[in-house]
C-alpha cells in the first residue's frame, strides 16, 4: 500500500541543511499495523506528514496505492483524503466553531454521504466512544482527553482504508489508552484497516505488527512478536 524509497527531508536555514529524515526506505502493506517510535524531534511527525501527503519530501520516491504521490494532482489527493485516509493529530485539531457531532460529521459531508446515513453513523460512533452526552458541546468545553477521542472518532467515521495517528493516546488515561489500542487492533484485524501510529509508549507500540524506530532521521525496523 505504501512504498517509500530513499526519502530525505531537510530544512535549509541560512544555508545550513538540518536533516529531519535520511534515506528512509520502507514498505507498509495493506492490513498492517505499524508503530513509529523515537525520541522527541526525531522526525516521527514529519514522517507521518509525508505519509499523509501533507508535506513533500525533499528527495525520494513515494507511492501510495500504486500511485506516485509526487506527481499527484490536488483533485486526486483530495479523493484519497475523502475515501482512504483518516488522520488523528497529536494536537487534536478539532474545528473550534463546530460541535462534537458536527466535527465528526464533517468528513462525511465531504464524502457526500446522504443525510440519514450520516446521522446514524455519527450517532453510532458517539455511542461507541461514550460521548453521546457531549455531542452538542464545543471543543473548548471538553477536556484534552475527550478532544482526543473526538479526533479519533472523526478519523474512524468515514471508514478509511488507512489511519495515520500521531500519538493518539498522548492525553488519555492509561485504561482509556488501552481501550483505544484495543479498538485499533480490532479495526485492523476485523476490518483490515491499515494503521500507522506514532507513539512514545512501548506498551502501545506492541499492539502493532512491527515498529519503526527513528533516531536522528534514520529508520531501524523491528518485527513485533505477535501477542
Amino acid at each position, binding site marked *: 500500500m505504501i512504498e517509500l524509497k530513499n526519502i530525505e527531508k531537510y530544512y535549509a536555514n541560512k544555508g545550513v541543511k538540518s536533516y529531519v529524515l535520511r534515506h528512509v526506505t520502507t514498505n507498509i502493506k495493506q492490513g498492517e499495523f505499524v508503530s513509529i517510535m523515537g525520541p522527541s524531534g526525531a522526525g516521527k*511527525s514529519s514522517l507521518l*506528514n509525508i505519509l*499523509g501527503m*501533507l*508535506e513533500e519530501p525533499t528527495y525520494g520516491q513515494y507511492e501510495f496505492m500504486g500511485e506516485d504521490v509526487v506527481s499527484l494532482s*490536488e*483533485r486526486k489527493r*483530495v*479523493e484519497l*483524503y*475523502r475515501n482512504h485516509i483518516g*488522520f488523528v*493529530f497529536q*494536537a487534536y*485539531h*478539532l*474545528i*473550534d*466553531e*463546530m460541535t462534537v457531532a*458536527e466535527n465528526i*460529521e*464533517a*468528513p462525511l*459531508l*465531504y*464524502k457526500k454521504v446522504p443525510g440519514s446515513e450520516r446521522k446514524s453513523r455519527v450517532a453510532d460512533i458517539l455511542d461507541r466512544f461514550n460521548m453521546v452526552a457531549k455531542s452538542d458541546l464545543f471543543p473548548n468545553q471538553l477536556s484534552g482527553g475527550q478532544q482526543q477521542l473526538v479526533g479519533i472518532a*472523526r478519523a474512524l467515521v468515514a471508514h478509511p482504508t488507512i489511519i495515520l495517528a500521531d500519538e493518539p493516546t498522548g492525553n488519555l488515561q492509561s485504561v482509556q489508552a488501552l481501550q483505544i489500542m484495543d479498538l485499533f487492533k480490532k479495526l485492523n484485524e476485523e476490518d483490515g484497516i491499515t494503521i500507522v501510529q506514532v507513539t512514545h509508549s512501548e506498551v502501545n507500540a506492541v499492539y502493532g505488527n512491527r515498529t519503526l524506530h527513528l533516531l536522528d532521521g534514520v529508520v531501524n525496523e523491528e518485527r513485533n512478536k505477535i501477542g
Partner: protein
Amino acid sequence: MFKLNFKIALRNLWKNKVYTAINIGGLSIALAAFIVVLLYVTYETGYDKDVPNYDRIYQVGRNLPDHKTDYTPAPLAKVIQDNFPEVEVTGKMSTTWFEFPIQTEKGRVYSTKALLLDYKVAKMFNIRPEGKLADENDPGLQLYVPKLFFNKLFPNEQVIFPKQVSLGPKKAGQFVKLYGTIERTDEHSNIKFDVVSLSKDISFDNKDYGTNNFKTFIQVKRGANIEALQQKIDQLYKREVIKAGASANDYRIAGRSVIFLDPLKNLHLKPMAGSDTNYKIVFALFGLGILIVIIACINFTNLTIAQATKRAKEVGVRKVLGAYQLNLTYQFLAEIFMQCLLSLALGLIIAEVLLPVFNRLFGIPLSIWHGDQTLFAQLLLILIGVTVISGIYPALVLSAYKPASVLKGNMQTSYKTRWLRNSLLAAQFVIAIIFIAGLLIVNNQLKYMRAEDKGFKSSQVVFIKNIQFYNKAKDFEQARNKMMKIPGVNYVTVASDIPDGSKPGTNTYKLGEQESSIDFIDVDFDYFETLDIKLKSGRFFSRNFMADTAGSATLNESAVARYGVTNPVGKIIRGCDMDYKIVGVVKDFKAQGFEAAVEPTIYSIKNPCNNQKIKIMVNIDQRSMTAALAALKSQWPSINNLDGDDFRYEFLDELYGRLFKKQEQLQSVFFFAAMLTIFIAVLGLFAFSAFTTNNRIKEISIRKILGATDFQMFKMLNTFFIWIVLISNVIGWPLAYILAKNWLETFAYRIDIPLFPFVLAALISTVLTVLTVSIQARKAVKTSPAEALKYE
C-alpha cells in the same frame, strides 16, 4: 453542507462580535454614502431622460469670437426644417428674464420663469397642458398656468377657457387669453417654467438675423450624421446671415464654424454654451463615493486577513478531511458575501436617514423608493463588486493555507500579507489626511471669501423688484425723492444690473486707439454711493453736472488697465455710436463673486444700446431698517406709480451670499467625507491594533515577567502604528497640496495655502492613532501574565 457552513459562519461572526460589528458597520456607512451619491449621479445625469426621442434631440448654438451661446436668431429653426430632410422637427423656445404679475379682479400671482414655446418643442419635450387642447394652427399665444396659480386667479369659480387675464402691473396690464392649466411637478428637465405660452410660432414670423433671442431645438431622424448636419447648418446659417445684409468677413461669422449641435443629454451637466461646473461636481462626488467604498473595502480586507490566522486551523483540517481549495474559497467568499449583504441592507437604512439632509443641501428630490429599478440593478452590481473587492484576497489567502504548516502549529502570517496589510492601512490614512487637510483649506478659502473686502457694501442695501423701465434719470427722480423722504433711507438708485453675480451686457468700446469688448452697466445717480464703492480718481456722477445724464461715463480699474491709459479722467471713450467723457474711475469691486477676476466695466447713465434699468436699490440705515421697509411697503403704490401693486424686495447680502452656495455645498460634502474617512480609518485601526495586540499578549506577558515596565510596553505597541501614520502623512501632504492648489486655482481671488492644515492633519491623525492603539495596549498590559500564559 451549506447549512453547516452557514452555521459556522454565524458562530464565527458572533465569536468575533467586535470585529464583525466594525467590519459591517464601517462598510454599511460607506455604502450608505455611496448609495446617496449614486442616486445623485443618476438623478443629475437623467435630466429629460423620459423624453421620447431623448437621443435624437439637439440644441443649436453659436460660437462667438469670445464665447459660446445658445441664443439663435428667430428664422433659423424654420430654414433648418425646410432644408434638411434628416431633421424631423425643429422649434424655438424663449425665456423671460424678469418677474411679472398675472392678475384678475380676484387675485394676483407672480411668474418668475415664464416660457414661450413653439408647439413642436412642447411636443418634443412631452409638455402637455390640460384644459382646452392646444390648437396647433392658432398663430396666437396660448397661456397655461399651474393649478396653484389658477386657484389664486380664480378662487372658487367655474371657468370656461379661454379666459382673459392681465399680464403686468395693474396700471399697465396687457390682456391675454388663458387657455388652461398645466401641471409639471417634475422639475427633472432642462425646460423649466412656471407659466408657459404655446404658439405655432412664438416669433410671429420674425425674419431678423440680427438679434438672437431664441433657443432652437431640433430632433433628427434615426441614424442622421450629426457632424455632417452641423456643417450643413453652419453653411446655411452663414448664407442666410449674409443674405440678410451682413458682410462675408463680419467678425461674427468669418473664418470659423459658427453653428454647433449640443445633444440633449449634455444640456444639464455640460452644455457647450455654459459652464461644466455641475458636471465636475457630479464627477467629483462620484469619485468621492467610490473612494469611500474602497476605503471601507480595504478595511474589510485588512481585518479579514488579520483574523485569518484564527481560521487557519479550520482550513487545514477541512483540507485533510477532503475539501478542495476551491470549496474553501467559495465558503469564505460566501461568508464575506453574507456580511456585505447585511452591510448593504444597513446601508440602505442609513441612506434613507441621510437623504433628507442631502436633499436639503443640494435642493433635489432624491428617493430610494422612487419605483426606479435601475437603483436595484446598481445595488446588485455594488454588492457583487464589494464582495469581490473586499473578499477575493482574504478568500484566496485563507483557502491556500497548507495543512502541514498550520496543523503543525507554527503558523505565521507571511511577510507578504503583512506588507500588504500595512500598505492598506497606510492608504486609508493617506486618504483621511488628504480629507482633513483639504477640509481645512476649503474652510479657510470660504472664510476668506466671507471676510475679504468685496469692494462694495451689501449689508444695508435692499434690492426692490420692479418691471417699470427707468431708463432716463428724470423718470426716476420722482420715485427717488419720495423714497428719500423716508427716515433711514440714505441713497436710492436704479440700474440695469446689481452686484449679485449676474453677468451684465458686453459691448465694444474704443478709447484712444484701443478697441475692446467690455461689460457695461447702466446706472443712475447714487449708484456708487448706494453700494459704498470707493472712488479712485475723478468724481462720481452728480446732479450738479448736466452733462452726466447725456454723455458721462465712469470706468473701473480693470477697464483702465485694459485700455492701458494713465490719466483716463477727461478722456473720451466711444461706444454704441456715441462719445462718453470719462468723469471718474472707481476701484474694482467683485460684483460677480470670487471665482472670476473683476471684468473691465463701463458705467454710464445714458446708453442707447441699453439694457432696461429696472433694478432699484436702496441703502438704509441698519437701525431704521424695519421701519423704513414698512414705510416703503405702505407707500409703494404711490412711489412706483406703474408697478406699485406689491412691494417685493430682497436683501443684497443674501443675494450675494448665494454665490457661495456651490462652495458651501462642497464644504459640507467635504466635511462629511472627512468625518467618514476618519471614522472608518479609526475603526480599522482599532480592530487592527486590537488584533495585533491580542496576538502579542503572550509576548507582552513574558516581557513583563522579564521586567519590562508598562510604559515600555505602550511604547513598543505604539511605535509601529506611529510609523505608519508618519509615512501616511508624508505621502498625504503633497497629494493634499496638489489637490488644494488645483481647487484654489478656480478662484481669481484666493488664499495662499497655509501650513497649519497639514500640521493639524498630522496632529489629528497621530493623536487618534495613539489613543486608539493605547486603548488596546492598556488592555494587553493590564492582563496578568498568569492569565495569558495559562493556555499554552
